[in-house]
Each structure stands twice: as structure tokens, then as C-alpha cells.
């Protein structure tokens, strides 16, 4: 087993054995969907129209909330220092941790999307689109989040800074993510929005491990 897959397996095993965290995040995700109808009223038509935005806001906030755990625990117990002197380059370490983080936070959210779809009165077509757009868009959120998490990892009480840094950069993901679900008035542009979302995901996932690796390396000494 290479170092790369070993890190993924280690992170998955750690999270699954200690349990709880991923479930809490899913709970938070579903709760946002439950709270919104209370705030704007239970009008089914209105909810169905707002549903794409609500689903993405819920996913966005849940991902931002879970961001801090990406490198924090490893920094606190010294694992990150050991990984720095490992043979696997830091960029690869960051990518491995991002993959594990995506599997642990984004996949449960996507699995829980049917619940939100039912509560927000989405139709079958909208639900399928939401599923695809979350599947394609969340890697970009994780990639941007990795930059934020690696930049703030050495700050002792940096929990709130990372989301504040990442939020403005993640706005395009939100725009095209919602755009890929909605079929508004006028010509249907959800196809091109989905392609742009995929492009953002590919670019950020390709580049952010290097930025994150560099940030970890220069923040630690």
C-alpha cells in the first residue's frame, strides 16, 4: 500500500471508528432544510421554487462547518509534522486528506438529499439534478476548504477564520451549483451551468493540493 492510499484509509478508519462526526454533519444539513420552511412559511410552490438554493446553502454551510477538521486534529497531535518528513510529498498528502474528507462529509450529505427533496417539495427531475450538481460541485468546496484549512491550521483559535476566508471564493460554486438545478424562465441553461461547475471542480481540485501543501510547509516551522 502506498503512502497515498494509506493516508486515505487511516483517515477513513479514524473517522468511522470514533463515529458521530459525519452523522452530526448530516443532521445539521437536514436541519437547515427543516428550519427554512418555518422561516418562509410552508407554501409548497414557493418552497419548490427556492429548493435548489436551500439545498445548496445547506450543503455549503455544512461543508464550511466541517472544514476545520481537515487538518486540525493532525496538527494538534503532531501527525502533520511527521507527514512533513514523510516520502510522500505534502501536496499528495493534502490530496489524500481531501479525498478522505470528501468521502466522509460530502457523500453522506448527498445520500441525505432525498430527505430534503421530499420536505422541500422538489419534483423527481429537480431531485436528480440536485443530486448530480452536488456530486460535481462538492469536490470544489472541499478543494477550496483545504486551502482555507491549511492556511489557518497553525492559528490556535482559527475555527471561524477559515470559513470567512473561503466563503467569497466559493461563491461561483454556489452560483453554478444552483444554476445547474434551476430551470428558470427563458431558455434552459442548466446544462452549461453544470459544465462550468465541473470545470471549477476540476481546476480547484487540481491546484489546491499544491497551495495547501505549501501553506502547511510554510506555516509549521
Amino acid at each position, binding site marked *: 500500500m502506498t503512502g497515498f492510499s494509506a493516508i486515505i484509509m487511516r483517515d477513513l478508519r479514524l473517522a468511522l471508528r470514533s463515529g458521530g462526526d459525519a452523522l452530526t454533519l448530516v443532521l445539521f444539513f437536514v436541519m437547515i432544510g427543516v428550519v427554512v420552511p418555518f422561516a418562509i412559511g410552508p407554501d409548497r410552490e414557493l418552497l419548490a421554487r427556492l429548493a435548489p438554493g436551500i439545498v445548496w446553502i445547506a450543503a455549503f454551510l455544512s461543508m464550511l462547518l466541517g472544514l476545520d477538521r481537515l487538518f486540525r486534529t493532525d496538527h494538534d497531535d503532531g501527525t502533520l509534522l511527521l507527514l512533513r518528513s514523510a516520502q510522500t510529498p505534502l501536496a499528495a498528502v493534502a490530496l489524500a486528506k481531501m479525498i478522505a474528507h470528501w468521502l466522509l462529509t460530502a457523500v453522506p450529505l448527498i445520500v441525505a438529499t432525498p430527505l430534503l427533496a421530499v420536505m422541500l417539495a422538489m419534483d423527481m427531475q429537480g431531485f436528480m439534478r440536485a443530486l448530480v450538481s452536488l456530486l460535481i460541485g462538492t469536490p470544489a468546496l472541499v478543494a477550496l476548504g483545504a486551502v482555507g484549512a491549511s492556511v489557518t491550521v497553525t492559528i490556535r483559535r482559527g475555527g471561524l477564520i477559515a470559513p470567512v476566508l473561503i466563503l467569497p471564493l466559493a461563491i461561483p460554486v454556489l452560483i453554478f451549483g444552483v444554476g445547474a438545478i434551476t430551470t428558470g424562465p427563458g431558455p434552459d441553461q442548466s446544462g452549461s451551468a453544470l459544465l462550468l461547475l465541473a470545470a471549477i471542480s476540476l481546476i480547484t481540485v487540481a491546484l489546491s493540493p499544491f497551495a495547501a501543501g505549501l501553506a502547511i510547509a*510554510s506555516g509549521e516551522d
Partner: protein
Amino acid sequence: MSIDTTPRQSWWTRIAHPGQFTAWTTPWLKPLAVVTVLLFALGLWFAFFNSPEDYQLGDTVRIMYVHVPTAWLSQFIYAAMAVSAVGTLVWRHPMADVSMKAAAPLGATFTALALFTGSLWGRPTWGTFWEWDGRMTSTLVLLLIYLGIIALWRAFEDQLRAARVVAIFTLVGAVNIPIIKFSVDWWATLHQPASVFRPDGPRMPGSILTPLFVMLFAFTFLFFTLHLMGMHTEIKRRRLINLERRAAERGGAA
């Protein structure tokens, strides 16, 4: 002026020393301030008394002489910060750190001013203070990035370590700059497209272009002056922190 005791070093290396940098740049400060004041006097005189009203916009066209320079600076300062960030990461030049840190609040201020004057201008001409138009939204995002960078600087205790981390984030955030630049071409919603720097020449009469350029230079020199002063202040602040730390160590030892 201090005496150069190491003649073989280039000026680039010499100004890496905070004291040398301060000594080298202090004589520039006063001329820069004088030029700024003169340019502002000339520009404001042109803007208020010696430029025509627009045949459609009327007197509100004069807001442009503040709005365009601040908007230009909001992007120019980010570019300056990005260049400084490269200086920090590649050469680890100490003055690049200081330049980056001093530029961030200035950038945030000028971006906020650009948004503010823009909304003042938008109310009488477009009929709205705010619209979710491409350029406005991307400039707002720029302001948020500036504020995030300032928050990041403040979160670190060790400013030397902060510099490299902030530099990485500054370069990541630089993707927003081309988005702002081309936003008016990609999403043609409300904000007008580029009308000064165009391949086929500016689309304005000289009577409006002259005060605009004078004000552009005035604001840019204002930034140069304030940035240099900010750098000097930051150097002094760091020296003070070092002195305090040393005094505390001595107090602890006694």
C-alpha cells in the same frame, strides 16, 4: 542617511534591512505628499469647474472622477499585494511582507469607497443603489477577500510566519481580479463596459478625459504616499514589539 558599509550588495538586498529601507525611502515621503496634494488640487478644480456636464447624466457625471480612480485602485492594490506575495514566497524579502500588510487595509478602504460612490452614482442614473450585476458583485467579493486577509493577518501572533501563509492566500484570491476586469464583457447586465482603455481608443471627449486622468494619478499617488507611510508604521510597530519582548525577557531574568 546611513553609510553603506557593504558596497557589493545590491540595493535590492540592502533595503531588506528595515532600517536601511526607512532611511532610503524617508526622503521620498514629502515629495510624494506634495505631488499628491498638487494633483488633487488640479484634478478637483478640473472636476468641479472646468469640465462640462454630461448631456444625459448632468452634474452626476462628476462622481466619476472619484468613482473610477477608487475602483481602479481597488484592483491595482490587489495586484501590488499579489506582487509582494510573490516577493515573500520566492525571495522571502522582509519588506515584501511589510508591503503586503500595509496594502491590505488601504485596498479594503478604496474598494469600499468605490462601492459607496458607485451606489451614490447609481441611484440617480440607474434608479437603484444596488443591483446584483456582475461587476458590482465581483467588487463586493473583492472587498470580502480584503477583509478576510486583514482578519488572517490579525489572527497570527508571529507576523513572520503569517506573511508566508497570507501570501499563499493572496495569490489564491487573485483569481478574482480578472473576473472583475472582464465581468462587464461576460455578463452585460447594468454596469457599462470598459470605455477608457480600449483597443480603438477612449470613448470620451478630452474635456472629461483630462480631469479623469489627473484624478487617476492623484489617487494613485495618494496610495503610494499612504502605502509608504503604512510600511514605515508597520516597521516601527515590529521594532516596538521586539523591544517590548526583549524588555520583558530582561525583566524576567532579573
